[in-house]
């Protein structure tokens, strides 16, 4: 006669239960990871400087959206004068006239400004310039 002791029964179901639990936890984790992150979009995303341009001057339109209500602030790195906050919103927009010479990094941060929730860069592209010597012309009367 063959029977199994309870301990044997426990051992028998231990592995499948552990697997089910792992799958359940994994499924929950996957669900959380599948949530759309907070989105930040900029328009324009690029400012192109022509040869004679010294700086970019343009109105920047920032738009963010989240899967559920968030409290957060929009800031620009190294531009402490720019800060716009929302409390319990799922999305927001912000328009600002900016003058700048280098890339601008826009960030969505928590209200305490500790954690970065999303980030986008407004890039400055300068027309690739080459230089050469002017003509030396001391014979010219107006040189």
């Amino acid at each position: 006669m063959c029977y199994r002791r309870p301990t044997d029964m426990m051992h028998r179901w231990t592995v499948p239960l552990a697997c089910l639990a792992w799958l359940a936890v994994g499924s929950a984790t996957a669900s959380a990871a599948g949530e759309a992150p907070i989105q930040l979009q900029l328009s324009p995303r690029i400012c192109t400087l022509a040869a004679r341009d010294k700086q970019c001057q343009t109105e920047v339109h920032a738009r963010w959206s989240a899967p559920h209500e968030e409290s957060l602030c929009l800031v620009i790195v190294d531009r402490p004068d720019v800060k716009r906050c929302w409390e319990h919103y799922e999305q927001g927009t912000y328009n600002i006239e900016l003058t700048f010479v280098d890339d601008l990094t826009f960030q969505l941060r928590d209200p305490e400004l500790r954690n970065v929730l999303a980030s986008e860069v407004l890039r400055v592209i300068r027309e690739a310039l080459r230089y050469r010597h002017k003509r030396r012309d001391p014979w010219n009367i107006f040189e």
Partner: protein
Amino acid sequence: MDTPLDRLLLTAFLLLAPWGAAVADEDGCKGPSGDCVAVGSWNFSVSLGAGIRTNPIVHESDIPLVVVPQFSYYGKRFFIDNLDGGVTLLDGDSMTLSLIASPGYDRVFFYRSDLQNVFVGNFGFAQQSRATVVDASTPEAVKFTQRPRYVTYLAGPEWTFKYSGVTGQLDVLHEITGHNHGDEIRAALGIPLSHAGGTWGANAGFTWKSAAIVNYYYGSPGLYDAGAALNPFVKVAFSRPLSGRWKLTAFVECERLANAIFDSPIVNQRYVTTTFVGTTYVF
């Protein structure tokens, strides 16, 4: 157009062009400065002021300087510098070598409408030269045949250098538009003098013109056959930045005409003096 100078220029071009193309990129210009300019950009400026260029031709009036527009364009090797154009074969910190084309200068004294007069500020209408008679009151006066002097262009190599702030220029040119087939050498030094109250500088040099060019402008077959001419000149200039894109500009230049030109029956002044005081706006 098969002269020794033609062959020399052609040989120089054939020898230097490949070498120049290979080293043209090895320049020290990394950004905008007094010596360097962006490739592919046009540059405009205009000087507004009062000045005059004396005219050595009999019966011709002096040339006023009021508005002096200037423009230039620099490509990777090609350039336009007012009425001059050229291709730079070698572009370096200490020297450049180019092939250039430049208008014949002396026509400015005969035609007020010559573009070189436009670029010294005169927007007057075309005016044919009146310098046709030696002296009508003289009984045995000989008529100096009236004839046109067409726009000419000269072309050839241009070598420039810069050493300890002194700039130098040497052009060896040949007339390529088929009107006189003459040769011309232009040489000058630009010497910084002082920064007292602005920038003071002096230029000195000479223009050598072959007999063909001198006769084209100042000669008359059977009446006056000139030889070659060597005209030295000296100039003192001052400039000082004003507000914004304006700067103060002033200069005095004096050119001494060689005997071959001064002895012409249609020339009555030994020196050509050019003066100007005004402001320059750089666009």
